[in-house]
């Protein structure tokens, strides 16, 4: 499933397009950036409320597929700009990370 398809399935707002054709391999949830920095799997859709430049850096460093801002979290201007430069898609949804993760898991065909 591509980021574009995932965004469609979630009904997510696309804040930064980036590489929407990138396949989503898995997903990860986390807000403590240093923690995520050590654990974000490559190709993951990453659900977080951290919409700042450091979050974009973490996603770039770990080669995540996209950032999904949950609970309508804000995206800083410099983060938006940098995500565009780095080709990282940034999506935004209203539900919280738990609910969003359940939907992502269903869309990715992952079961507990």
């Amino acid at each position: 499933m591509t980021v574009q398809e995932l965004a469609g399935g979630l009904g997510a707002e696309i804040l930064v397009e980036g590489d929407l054709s990138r396949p989503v391999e898995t997903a990860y949830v986390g807000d403590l950036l240093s923690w995520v920095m050590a654990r974000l799997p490559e190709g993951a859709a990453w659900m977080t409320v951290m919409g700042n430049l450091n979050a974009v850096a973490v996603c770039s460093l770990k080669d995540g597929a996209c950032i999904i801002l949950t609970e309508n979290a804000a995206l800083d201007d410099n983060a938006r700009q940098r995500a565009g430069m780095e080709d990282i898609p940034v999506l935004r949804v209203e539900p919280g990370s738990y609910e969003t993760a359940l939907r992502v898991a269903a869309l990715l065909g992952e079961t507990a």
Partner: protein
Amino acid sequence: MRELALNVMDVAQNSISAGASLITLTVAEDSAADRLSITLEDNGCGMTEEQVRSVVDPFYTTRTTRKVGLGVPLFKMEAEMTGGSFSIRSQKGKGTVLEAVFVPSHVDMIPLGDISGTVRLLVTCNPTLDFLYRRSRDGREFTMDTRELRQILGEDVPLNDPEVSEWIAGYLEEQTALLKEEM
């Protein structure tokens, strides 16, 4: 980071890479003022004004193996998230002073963690460099200066000698416990 001590370790690497021969780490707690400040000062190669501005940008790094450097940006963010502050002063050829101030009562405060462990590791992994560690809490303080240790030990005993490392660990633990004792 999940412990500020790990962040100090990460940021101290910048001082080491900058060719510092003396690194001073000051950790000061003030309960009444609700402040914890961590200051790292080195006599390394220093930075230009432009470099100082760019080190807080995670997409700036002196490393060539990857294009992202998060040590300083995360440290700054963690301080600011508690309502604290962050500053860097640097002079080319003289060195750099980095100060992060935290508000420990804030809900987003990250625990200081094992700062003594960080100091011990910095000393034992860099036996040719000197470290001055100053730790204070509500008016009490202690210091550990590797230049003094060298004088006592003489030239033949390196700072990464296992017994010296053990002694450092014990000293830091004992002194830190004294700081925390009820007045």
